[in-house]
């Protein structure tokens, strides 16, 4: 792998990291996951128990 290619790969990786970092922080990658964030996660799980989670036309198997 030549130097330019390595630099391009590193640059690409940094750009990806730069984009995804706020999402990581939001998801609790850094530090403590707050009591509120824990409650929100439980609420998300409980929403998956509802029939609405799999309703809607996007969940219908396509015809042929």
């Amino acid at each position, binding site marked *: 792998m030549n130097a330019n290619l390595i630099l391009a790969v590193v640059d690409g990786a940094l750009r*990806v990291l730069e*984009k*995804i970092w*706020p*999402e*990581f922080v939001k*998801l*609790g*990658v*850094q*530090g*403590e*996951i*707050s*009591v509120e964030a*824990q*409650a929100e*996660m*439980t609420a*998300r*799980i409980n929403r*998956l*128990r509802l029939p609405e*989670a*799999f309703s*809607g*036309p*996007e*969940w*219908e*198997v*396509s015809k042929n």
Partner: protein
Amino acid sequence: MRMRVRMPVALLLAAALGLAGCGTLEPGGVYQGDKVLYDADVAIATSYEVIHTFVAWEYANREALSARPEIRSAADRMRRGAPQWVRSALALRDAYAARPDVETRDALATAVGVLRAAMLEATRYLQAAAAAESK
């Protein structure tokens, strides 16, 4: 032809890399410090969201994606399987929450693994679409 992928690519990458939920739990929360349970919930919820995004995207862009029948096939497989995969993961999650031991933890991990595999497949298609869109 525009095939917008609504979920941020960043979130897809985060989900695919499995990096979500690496922090510690603040005391006093509903998980009572059980990081295994919290991580399982993150994995289940994130997998559902990515799979949902994928099937909704395929549905909204079916005509434009007709040249890629494997995408429709994958989406249909997820439509058939995802409700059961999620139900199963939730049942095993509840079993682990009620009795956290090695047996229930391993069963939960297996169920989460099924969801994670589907999520990774969905992520591959969505990332490819997002990359094509950004060109």
